[in-house]
């Protein structure tokens, strides 16, 4: 059944590539990579937190949205960026905005853990899930008070010129920049988790909290750090979203958060490479669905398709593509 679906999907892609021509198909795929990069930054936050606490941080998408709002404020009010700016000042302003968004969201997410989840650490699993949903509403209301319910428009400061254009396949700078910001952030994450003492503490706490405490690891501090890290990644995602899509609203994070969560489950919840893979797959699916024309459902259907995928994974492969990694599971 599952393999029949995959075959059908591959056939649909191949047929589209034939109908549209290879160059068009590749252009759509490049959009998919860009979407996947933004989703990956958010999906990693779900997976990091789930891996260590087995909690779905429903407020995470809204932390991402706050990252977008912080970035918009930096770009518009602090740096007043626009078409008139030199390349250097754009690069500097984007770099500073990235750091501010990451720091702000890291702090925000760690604070959420401290006030909404930690007091319920020993309560039944449903309790923190409900406060997570509550935190999601709180953040959206804060965003409405801060930025009003309408879309915040950010100027398009990324260059739109082509990096290359080879026989119809064109890659624009704005897409490349999204990927160029994402990759070092991901590499820093891998280094942190694999190589540092703090990363070791995170991995140990995720695998057995009490045993980690017995090794001398301050479990509460490690959990705070994990939330801060997840928030920082979401902050980076928020900046990229504001730069690439140029508009953001209080409910942007709700929708994108659910898509990123699906990506995390698709890759295998708790599994960091899995979250990136899942995000890329979802990014491709969205881009193909919205860009291809031969029997494609179109953008109205994107969310239905993403959630159908969520249901299919939960039924056929609950541990995801690369296998889940939770305190209880393998």
């Amino acid at each position: 059944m599952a393999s029949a679906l995959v075959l059908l999907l591959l056939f649909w892609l191949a047929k589209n590539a034939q109908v549209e021509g290879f160059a068009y198909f590749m252009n759509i795929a490049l959009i998919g990579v860009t979407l996947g990069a933004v989703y990956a930054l958010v999906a990693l936050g779900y997976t990091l937190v789930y891996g260590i606490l087995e909690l779905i941080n429903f407020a995470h998408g809204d932390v991402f949205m706050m990252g977008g709002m912080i970035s918009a404020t930096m770009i518009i009010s602090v740096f007043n960026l626009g078409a008139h700016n030199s390349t250097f000042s754009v690069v500097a302003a984007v770099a500073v905005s990235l750091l501010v968004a990451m720091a702000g969201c890291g702090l925000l997410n760690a604070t959420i853990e401290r006030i909404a989840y930690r007091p319920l650490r020993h309560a039944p699993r449903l309790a923190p899930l409900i406060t997570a949903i509550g935190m999601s509403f709180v953040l959206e209301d804060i965003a409405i008070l801060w930025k009003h319910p309408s879309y915040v428009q950010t100027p398009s400061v990324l260059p739109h010129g082509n990096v290359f254009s080879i026989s119809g396949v064109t890659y624009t700078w704005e897409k490349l920049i999204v990927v160029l910001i994402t990759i070092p952030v991901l590499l820093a994450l891998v280094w942190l988790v694999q190589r540092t003492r703090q990363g070791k503490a995170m991995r140990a706490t995720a695998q057995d909290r009490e045993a980690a405490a017995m090794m001398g690891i301050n479990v509460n501090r490690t959990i705070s750090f994990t939330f801060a890290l997840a928030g920082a990644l979401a902050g980076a995602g928020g900046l990229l979203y504001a730069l690439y899509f140029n508009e953001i609203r209080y409910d942007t994070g709700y929708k994108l958060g659910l898509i990123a969560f699906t990506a995390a489950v698709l890759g295998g919840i708790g599994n960091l490479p899995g979250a990136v893979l899942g995000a890329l797959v979802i990014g491709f699916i969205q881009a193909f669905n919205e860009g291809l024309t031969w029997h494609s459902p179109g953008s109205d259907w994107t969310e239905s398709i993403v959630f159908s995928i969520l249901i299919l994974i939960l039924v056929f492969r609950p541990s995801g593509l690369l296998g889940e990694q939770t305190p209880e599971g393998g």
Partner: protein
Amino acid sequence: MTAAAAPLLEVDGIETFYGSIQALRGVSLQVREGEIVTLIGANGAGKSTTLRSINGLNHPRRGSITFEGQDITETPAHDVVKLGIAQSPEGRRLFPRMTVLENLEMGAFQRSDRAGMQEDIDRVFALFPRLAERKSQKAGTLSGGEQQMCAIGRALMARPRLLMLDEPSMGLAPIFVDRIFETIVEVNKQGTSILLVEQNALMALQVASRGYVLETGTVALTDDAAQLAQNEDVRKAYLGES
């Protein structure tokens, strides 16, 4: 024995709860410098809970715990290990997705001396050559006996002054049980005091200098190990004699 020497570990009348369930009803025990002390008792008597109270995972509601003269009753678990108490817990509790070597390194997490760590890894591998062969294998895929060795090795990596072992012979083949007990004696000779919880009361009493018998959350009996091994009630209840 010098009467003046304060015990390394002094547990005084602790009462520990799981929610509203009282597991310990006033347990008192001592471990002196250089001793092997064993804690025996039926299932559910409170042996593991006693260790969990000492290592800071379940703070007692009443009573006190003193280690090297310092009150550690309320000290969080991650600080207790820094003071010099390490444990191989019930159920081993290894980090399943880390290799054997990484698990051993985790045991030394609160230490900063790299050279000493390598020395201790070599020492653990000398005690358990089997672990050296398996050092790159994920701990979750080790056999039960290998996991037990890894858990003991991991606790040793903390260079503890007091090593607490919760049923180290659990689930092991007789040949491994012998090996584990030899190791306990060896580690003790190297200067580590040991608090040993065991189902295998006969062997525990052979290696220990003193023992405590726990019954439903209280110390029912305490004596020199040799005396306990002779005690009729103990023989009936724990040494399988009728």
